[in-house]
C-alpha cells in the first residue's frame, strides 16, 4: 500500500507525542472516521475541545492524511499486518496502532458499504411472469397461426420496482434462455480460477 508524500507527512505529525498527545490522538482518529461516515458535510467536525491547542493547519493536514489513509486501507482490504507495518514505518507507537486498528475494525463494514455504493448497477430481476398467446389472424393477413410469448420481468432498481414487458417468439425465447445459461456458465468459470 503506497502513500504519497503529503499523506506520510501528515501521518508522521500525527504520530508525534509532542504534537498530538494521547487524548487528542484518540479524538482525531474518532473524528476522522466519523467525518467520513456522516451523511452530511460537517464543517465543524474538527472543533473539538481537545484539538483546540494544536496548530490548525497541522491539524487539518493530519486530518486529511488520516482520512486518506483510512480510505486506502479499506480500499485495499488491508489486514492487521499490512496496516501495522505501514504505521510502524511512519513511527507510530504500538498502542496508537492498536487504537487505530480497533476503531478501523469497528467502522470497517460501514466504510466498505460506502465504497461499494459508488458505481453503477443495472436493475435486478426478481420475478418473471409469462403468457403464451396464439396469433390467429389480423386485419391484414387472414391466417397467421403463430404462438408468441408475453414476458413481464419484475425488476428492482434502487428500491423502486419496475416492470419490463416484451413479446418474443419461441426461437427468441430459446435464444434468451441460451444466453442466460452461457452467462451462468461464465460466472462459474470465473469462480474456478
Amino acid at each position, binding site marked *: 500500500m503506497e502513500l504519497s508524500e503529503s499523506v506520510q507527512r501528515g501521518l508522521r505529525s500525527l504520530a508525534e507525542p509532542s504534537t498530538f498527545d494521547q487524548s487528542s490522538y484518540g479524538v482525531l482518529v474518532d473524528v476522522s472516521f466519523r*467525518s467520513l461516515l456522516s451523511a452530511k458535510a460537517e464543517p465543524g467536525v474538527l472543533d473539538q475541545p481537545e484539538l483546540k491547542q494544536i496548530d490548525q493547519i497541522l491539524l487539518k493536514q493530519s486530518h486529511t492524511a488520516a482520512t486518506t489513509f483510512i480510505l486506502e486501507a479499506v480500499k485495499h482490504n488491508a489486514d492487521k499486518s499490512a496496516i501495522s507495518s505501514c504505521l510502524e514505518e511512519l513511527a507510530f507507537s504500538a498502542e496508537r496502532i492498536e487504537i487505530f486498528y480497533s476503531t478501523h475494525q469497528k467502522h470497517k463494514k460501514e466504510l466498505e458499504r460506502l465504497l461499494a455504493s459508488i458505481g453503477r448497477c443495472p436493475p435486478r430481476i426478481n420475478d418473471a411472469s409469462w403468457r403464451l398467446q396464439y396469433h390467429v389472424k389480423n386485419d391484414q393477413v387472414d391466417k397467421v397461426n403463430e404462438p408468441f410469448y408475453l414476458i413481464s420481468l419484475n425488476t428492482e432498481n434502487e428500491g423502486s420496482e419496475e416492470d419490463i414487458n416484451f413479446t418474443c417468439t419461441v426461437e427468441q425465447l430459446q435464444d434468451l434462455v441460451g444466453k442466460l445459461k452461457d452467462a451462468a456458465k461464465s460466472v462459474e468459470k470465473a469462480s474456478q480460477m
Partner: protein
Amino acid sequence: MEEVDNILIHALKQVGTEVSEETGSIKQFTSELIVEAVVRCIRVIDPGLGSALPTFLPPGMSARFRVGMSLAQACQDIGYKGEIGYQTFLYSNEPEIRSLLMFLVEKLPRESAEASDQPTGKSVVLQKAIAAAIRAQLAVPWLPPNCRLPLHGETQSPGAQHNFHVQPLSLPHCTKGPGKKQLKGGQGSLIYMLEDYQRDVLPPVTAQPSHQASVVASILEQHTAELSAAQEWDNEWNTQGLLSRLTPQEYRSRKLARLRKRIEEQLRSAALPCPESAFGGPRSASDLSELLQAFRGSAPSDHILTKGTHFTHTQKFTFTQVRTAPRAQHKHAAPPILSGHQSESDMQLRQQEEQASLQQQFQQLSALPCLLSCVHGGCVWVQVLDELKQRELGNSEKEEKMQVKKKTIDLLPDADDNLPKLQAVVEASAKRVVHLASQWEKHRAPLIDEHRRLKEICSNQDLESSRKLSEIKSLHDKIRVSTEEAKKKEEIYKQLVTELENLPQDVSRSAYTQRILEIVSNIKKQKEEITKILSDTKELQKEINSLTGKLDRTFAVTDELVFKDAKKDESVRKSYKYLAALHENCNQLIQTIEDTGTILREIRDLEEQIETENSSKTVANLERILDDYKAIRQENSALAAKVREG
C-alpha cells in the same frame, strides 16, 4: 513396510480403486483387488492400453488365464522390467506384487507439476481474490425480496448507487519561516493571507465536497494523483534530471521557464490568424501585460507556483472577468448605436444575457477563452512596440553618420592647415593603438594559460561527475531491482502460504519425510559399521596370513634342525615324530574350524531362503493351481462333449 503400503494404498484410492478400510498391507490384497488396481493404474497411465482390459476377473478359468496374460503383456509394454506373467495376478506373492504396484504408482502422471507452473504476480492474486469472492457470493442462496436478511444486503438488494464524481479539494500546506523571509513584500503578504485563510476559514477536507460519496471519490482521486505525479517526477528525474547535472530546484525552474515560453509562443501563434474575434480593440492590452507579469513574477519557489498560483490565478481571472464584463457591454453598446436597428430593451437584454453567459464561463474555471482574447489584443501592441524600437535604432545610427559628415564639412574651409593636423592626429592614434596592442598581448598570454588550466580542471571534473553519475544510476537500478525482488518474494510467500492452507490435509508429508530422513541416517550408520567390520576383517586376514607364514617358516626350520639331529639320536627321532604329529593335528584343527565357519554361513543362507520361500505362500498357490487345472480339464471335457453333440 507399512509406510510403503500406506502410500501405495493411498495412491490406488486416488486412482479410483475401491480398497476397503481394513486392508492395511499388500499381503491382504486378493487377486481381484490386485487386478482392479493394476488395470486402473494402466488406464490412467496409458488410456489406449487400459481401455481394453476389464477391471475384474471373469469366473471362467480360461478367461481368467487370458486376462492374466493380457495384463502381463500390458505391464511389459508400459516398461516393467521384472519377471511377470499370468501367475503374478492369479497366484500372487507379496514381493512381486509390491514391486509391480510401486512401479505402476511411480508411472502415474504427476498432477503437481501443473500447479507449480502457475505464474505469480499481482494480477493473479487479484484474480484469485475475485474468484473467491464470486464463489462466496454464489454460495449464498437467492431469496425473494421479502425474505432477505441483512446478510444478503450487499449482493441481492442494492442500496442507492452514486456515480464516481470528483470535486477538487484544497488542501492546507505549511510554509516554513525561512521561505517567507525570501519573498518580496507583495508575495509575503499573500502568503500570510493564504495562511490565515487556511487556518481559520478553510473547511476540513471531508466537508468540502457537496455529497458524501463525492468525499470518498475526491479524496481517493487526490491521493492517486499525488502518487502518480510523484512517480512521474521520479522517472523523469532518474532519466533526464540526473543527466543535466542540476539540482532538483534548478531543473524544475528551467523546465518551468521552457514550458512558459512555449505557452506564450503557442498563444501568440494561435491568436494571430483570427483578426476578428468577439472582443477586439481597445481594452485587453493592459490585461495581457498583467497576465505575463503574473507568469513571470510569481515564482520564487515551487510551493507557491503549484498551490499558490492556483489561488492567485483564480483571483486574477475573477478580476479580469469583472473587467471584461463592462467592456463587453461597451462593445455591444457601440454597434447598435451605429446600426440603429435594435431597441433599447433588446440591447439591455442582450447585454444581460452576455454577462450571465460570461460569468458562467468563468465560473467553470476555464480562463483560456479570455486569455486568448487578451493575447490577441496584446499581440498587436507588442508588435507596435517592436517596430518603434527598431525605428529608434535606425534613427540613432543615422544621427551619428550625420554628425561625422558635419564635422568634416566644418573642417573643409581650412583644408591646408587641417590636413597635416589630421595626419598627425591619425599617426598619434595609430602609435597609441600599437602601444595598447602590445600591452594587451602582455596581459593576454598569462590569461590564456590560466584559461587553459581552468578548462582542463573543468573537463576533469566533468569526467569525474559523469563517472559518479553512472555509478549513482547503477546503484539506483540495483536498489530498484532488489526492492522489486523483495516485494515479489514476499507476495509469492503470501500466496504460497494461502495455497498451503487450501491444500487437502489427508496425507501428512512431514511424517514421511521424517521417516525418510531417519532411514537415510540409519543407512549411513550401517554403512559406517560395515566399513569398520570390513577393515577389521581385512586386519584379521592379514594377521592370519602372516601367522601362517611364520608358522610355516618356523616349522620348516625346526623340521630341518630336528631332522639333522634325528639321524643320530633316538630321543630326537621320537621328538621329531611328535613334532610332525603335532603339526598334522593342528592343521586338522584349523581345517575343521574353517569348515565349521563355511557350514555356519551356508546355514544362514539356507535359513534366509526358507524365509523368502515361506512368504511367497507357494503351498496355497500350488493347491489353487491344482484346483484350477482340474477346473480347466473339466471345462475342456465339457466343451469337447458339446462339440461332439452339436
